[in-house]
């Protein structure tokens, strides 16, 4: 091998495992704190709990309309007058001329009344910037259940496929690794929910599923190499083989992660508001996915197979080789 760097991932496995353990525990703590403060582990958007969200911007072509930034207190006063004082108000945009209001589900008349009151009290809003998301509670619950179902089904689908292509223990370790990725991503979004009030919507569920696909993808490439090295006349313990396989696939892992992250970074920095946090979730998840395939899935596999003492697909030739190597 021409690779000069002898990178042995299994040697510092306790370090990697502790790092991951700390991240997982921290994620669980964020979710528990969130559970206590807002009764859910992650701050759900109206996609999952139902409600009405209205976003609009002042029409700045009307003279004097955009001179002053919108004040939250004023909007709040209008909401209180409409008997929906418990809503949350955000003022957005560079000039503070956009508002986003989230309320419990409003009937059509209530919503129209609110819009009229805002136009009266704050200024003329441009109808072309109006964004309404109005979700009934049943629909919200359905979206959530559908999403969770999709998550569980793809878990089992992946376990089944990997068990067929590799072995059952490979599949379980791959699943453990991707569970780690999904959990920590959720933990970070739980923290963002607590700190900046970020809500998770159905796009976040999409992101989680994509992360799972990507994470397994990465793990599979390393597994594939491990299987190949086990099958060939490669000598050494399972840890040696895992180290070698990780080393052989390291360049590819880094490059693939880089090329996938480039467009995501572009979306995160320059894309529309809707996709910003979707891209962020994917960036976090993909980084974790690469990390877990290299540092967790492979080291766990080496430990598990080593502990059980049986090398898979042992041929008489490779036994001889191992003996010789010892």
């Amino acid at each position: 091998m021409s690779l000069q760097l002898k990178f042995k991932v299994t040697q510092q496995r306790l370090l990697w495992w502790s790092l991951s353990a700390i991240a997982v525990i921290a994620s669980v703590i964020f979710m528990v704190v969130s559970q206590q403060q807002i009764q859910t582990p992650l701050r759900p958007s109206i996609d999952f709990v139902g409600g009405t969200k209205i976003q609009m911007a002042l029409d700045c072509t009307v003279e004097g309309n955009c001179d002053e930034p919108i004040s939250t207190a004023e909007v709040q006063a209008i909401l209180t007058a409409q008997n929906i004082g418990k809503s949350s108000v955000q003022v957005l945009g560079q000039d503070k001329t956009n508002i986003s209001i989230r309320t419990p589900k409003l009937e059509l008349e209530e919503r129209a009344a609110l819009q009229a009151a805002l136009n009266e009290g704050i200024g003329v809003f441009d109808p072309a910037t109006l964004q309404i998301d109005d979700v009934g509670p049943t629909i919200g619950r359905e979206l959530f259940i559908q999403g969770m179902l999709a998550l569980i089904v793809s878990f089992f689908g992946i376990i089944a496929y990997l068990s067929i292509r590799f072995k059952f223990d490979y599949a379980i370790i791959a699943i453990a690794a991707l569970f780690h990725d999904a959990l920590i991503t959720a933990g970070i979004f739980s923290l963002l929910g607590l700190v900046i009030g970020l809500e998770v919507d159905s796009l976040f569920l999409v992101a989680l599923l994509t992360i799972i696909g990507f994470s397994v993808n990465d793990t599979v490439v390393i597994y594939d190499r491990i299987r190949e090295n086990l099958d060939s006349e490669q000598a050494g313990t399972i840890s040696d083989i895992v180290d070698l396989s990780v080393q052989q696939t390291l360049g590819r892992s880094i490059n693939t992660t880089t090329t996938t992250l480039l467009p995501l970074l572009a979306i995160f920095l320059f894309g529309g508001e809707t996709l910003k946090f979707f891209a962020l979730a994917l960036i976090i998840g993909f980084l974790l996915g690469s990390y877990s395939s290299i540092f967790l899935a492979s080291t766990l596999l080496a430990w598990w197979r080593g502990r059980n003492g049986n090398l898979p697909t042992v041929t008489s030739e490779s036994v001889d080789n191992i003996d010789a190597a010892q």
Partner: protein
Amino acid sequence: MQKQRLVIVAILFLVAIAVTILVTLPPQLGLDLRGGAQLTIQVQPAENGQTVTEDDTTAVKRVIENRINGLGVAEAITQLVGSDRILVQLPGVTNPDQAERVLGGTAQLEFRPLRPGTEGEFTAQFQTLRQLEVQVALLRDDGNAEENQAEINQLEDLITAANEKILTFFDPVNLTGENVTNAQPAPLQSGNGWQVFINFDEAGGDIFAEITKELAGTGRSVGIFLDDALISAPTVGAEYATTGISNNVTISGSFDFDGANDLAIQIKGGSLPFPVEVVENRTVGASLGQDSIRRSIYAGLAGLFLVLIFVAVYYRLPGVIADCALVIYTIFTLACYSLIGVTLTLPGIAGFILSIGMAVDANVLIFERTREEIYKGNTLYRSVESGFFNAFSSILDSNVTTLIACGALFFLGSGLVKGFALTLAIGVAVSMFTAVTCSRTLMLLTVLGLPSVRQNPSLFAPNAPK
């Protein structure tokens, strides 16, 4: 060599087809990108506890389509979701409140007799109305509905005015959809054409008998109104002057099956005791949609550009070849979207951008393997061939697992989630195809065809053994 040339010709042929598809059939944009309202309407169980069947929902859907025509929205889409929901997409709607109000009410079906003395006026208005309806239908089917939008709106206003006018010629007699027990198309006894059967309940039958007795032989019509718009105006034959028609009503005209079925569904929809409720409304302002389109397309292009540069710099000659394959990949994928009729939404665009990343991955896997083979001292040709061979099982496994996740999202998710899953899945499938055909063929052609390349493995791998 001969084989590679053939493959290249085939690929170029496919590219030409794909470009043609893209030019003639540009990808459809979702409402979140072009602006508009998307409403989910749920048919509620009746007050008497009657459950909603799919047939009922279909009838309600027909009513909703009538109402949308009244709104004058071009390219509106209605579709059944499950057994009791109707998804309505209204591109470019500027007044979502009005749309929700118009679509969310229970249908009003009414039978009214024409007042004596208004026959002449009614006939004139009725003809105008039919003409207007034909004109609108032509414009809508024109394929350029968006360009014709202004004209359609104008005509719709005229239709509404004509309907309002017509309504004043008819007297209300309190015979409504509640009195209708059934409506269905049936073939004419002569076998040549179709008619519509209507059955009333007892009270309704009595009122209808009264009306028909009075109208029989006069040439005056029974107006059938759905949401105050005239849907049919049959006359009554003179033979019913003494008895009237109390039940087993047939409306015959020059109906074909579609015409009869349509009228029956409209009548049935108006007679359904089911209230409807708008359970979801997602509206994106037109300017907001355009803004996110522009920004996402810029971001996507920037991302793609960065990837192309990175691949070319890091992998040198094969990188440049991979870049060619990636461009071909992009064209193929977009053509597939058009062909399959994928509606591009924001998450869909994200799925596409992501699939570019995965397409690069296949190439990266192959090049890493090719490099290894070169370092082992193999010839370029052998290295390329075994690079592809060795990388294939990784590419297959990793793509299949992604497809499994896509499948779960597609079949269990809805709306945005479905769109994302579909675009990603198409991307993954196309990327497998282009990786094994385009990249491979282009590589082999360069290696075999250009002697200067063949003797210079460092174009493929730095520090390659000479």
